[in-house]
């Protein structure tokens, strides 16, 4: 059915919009003057271990434990804060513990100039095994399920490939870049002929915050403006505003890389693609992904520009696991796990898969 719109209808719409604009101006001014920091990372947690600057936190499950095995969550090193996994209203951590699963989170820490010598070998062969052992000992469980996110995926896989006896039961690898020849924008920007990584590290004594920030901002050149426009449109929606404040805080707090680690990350992974080609060696130990035989779920995000689906999917052909599943979910690199739709897609998928592949609850 069609109708002839009366002349007053569009006019009324503009008047409504003007009224709404005045209200939003008021709320926008409040936000502008509000100097308080958005509350983030509110879920209670315990510090249960540390190795150097890296810490291991436990988020205890709520109610009865439904999984016999705790989960060790390994995110990225450097780049940004891990409270993005515990934003109010979009908390991956909260969802997990609400499902009756103990979650151990690795926080790699804030590295400074004094950590210039901290290398990939230190992270993979010293810190990660020590924190995994700590989680096992603390939980009293015989093994762990391992969750990797972003750079935490290659780090976790290198740990497993160099520690065949690691007490890990099942793996969920989320948006992890594996084949860096399909590495998207970052792979192009850090290619050997255009990115003088050694000089940069020598000049700044590490992977400088300014470059990390610039790199991520350039992934979506008009992203900041689009975010502000969306905020303006949703200023009347308090839930949206609070979500924006939390995400805005996170997206402006960057963490630099230790010098040696950054150098190796760019050279070995982005420029030489050693992991996918089976040429990576850490202190003389070859990283062969085919030695990884645990059940594995590989998750990619359709709009991911940091770890594009083609890069993440490559893991399926490289691991030796017989029980493996690949899933591509809607969203981008961050929105997949911390976005407004995450509770519909990623979170239930991960928990469901872990349940299917998990050990029986110990009661």
């Amino acid at each position, binding site marked *: 059915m069609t*109708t002839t719109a009366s002349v007053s209808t569009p006019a009324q719409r503009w008047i409504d919009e003007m009224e709404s604009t005045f209200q939003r101006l008021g709320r926008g001014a409040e936000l502008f003057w509000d100097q308080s920091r958005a509350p983030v990372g509110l879920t209670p947690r315990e510090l249960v271990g540390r190795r*150097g600057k890296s810490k291991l936190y436990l988020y205890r499950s709520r109610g009865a434990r439904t999984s016999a095995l705790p989960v060790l969550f390994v995110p990225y090193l450097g780049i940004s804060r891990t409270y993005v996994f515990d934003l109010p209203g979009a908390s991956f951590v909260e969802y997990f513990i609400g499902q009756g699963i103990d979650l151990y989170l690795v926080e790699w820490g804030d590295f400074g100039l004094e950590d210039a010598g901290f290398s990939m070998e230190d992270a993979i062969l010293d810190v990660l095994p020590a924190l995994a052992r700590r989680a096992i000992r603390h939980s009293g469980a015989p093994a762990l399920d391992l969750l990797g996110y972003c750079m935490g995926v290659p780090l976790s896989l290198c740990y497993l490939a160099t520690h065949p006896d690691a007490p890990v039961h099942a793996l969920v690898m989320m948006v992890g870049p594996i084949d860096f020849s399909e590495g998207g924008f970052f792979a192009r920007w850090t290619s050997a*002929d255009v990115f003088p990584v050694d000089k940069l590290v020598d000049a700044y004594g590490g992977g400088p915050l300014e470059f990390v920030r610039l790199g991520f901002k350039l992934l979506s050149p008009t992203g900041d403006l689009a975010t502000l426009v969306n905020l303006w449109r949703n200023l009347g929606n308090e839930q949206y505003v609070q979500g924006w404040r939390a995400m805005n805080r996170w997206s402006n707090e960057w963490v630099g890389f230790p010098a040696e680690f950054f150098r190796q990350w760019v050279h070995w992974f982005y420029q030489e693609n050693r992991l996918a080609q089976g040429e990576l060696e850490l202190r003389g130990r070859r990283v062969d992904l085919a030695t990884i035989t645990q059940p594995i779920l590989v998750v990619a995000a359709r709009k991911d520009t940091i770890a594009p689906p083609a890069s993440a999917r490559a893991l399926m052909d490289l691991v030796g696991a017989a029980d493996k599943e690949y899933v591509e979910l809607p969203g981008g690199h961050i929105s997949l796990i911390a976005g407004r739709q995450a509770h519909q897609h990623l979170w239930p998928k991960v928990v469901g898969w872990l349940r299917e592949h998990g050990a029986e609850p110990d009661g």
Partner: protein
Amino acid sequence: MAEEGPPLPFSLWTQAYRTWLDAWAAGMGVGGAAETPAGSAQADPVQLTRRAFDSWLNGWNLAFEQLLNAPETLTASGRTLDALLNVQLPLREQTTAMMALWLQTLNLPSRDELLRVAVQINEANARLDELRDLVEDLSDHVAALGAREGRRTPAPVNGDAR
């Protein structure tokens, strides 16, 4: 049938312009918008304006992305960064040396000296962590031995961080 490729910035801007015109038509209650099904967002001039803006902005985003990923831009930005670092490196070294001289004159520690202390603290921390792991391993072994021999086992090390 030809495969549909990614949109070009120009097509997004054209789309933005058309939607913008529709928004104006809807806003003045004239043109095709007046014949739009009731309740449809198509007839809402505000929604149409927003959609036009989004298309326009997406066009710019795509244009910048294409520009940033063009081989020429990558080469040029790489050369610029290299040139900047070529200037910055010796400049930093000279500044550091000069600062160290001034701080020495004032009998204050230089950055390198502070850094050395920080590195030593790091190393001491790392040794402590290793020792702690060792003590825990030993404690586990003793507990296991005790259990095997049917004796009372020592209490496991408590789960605090240090």
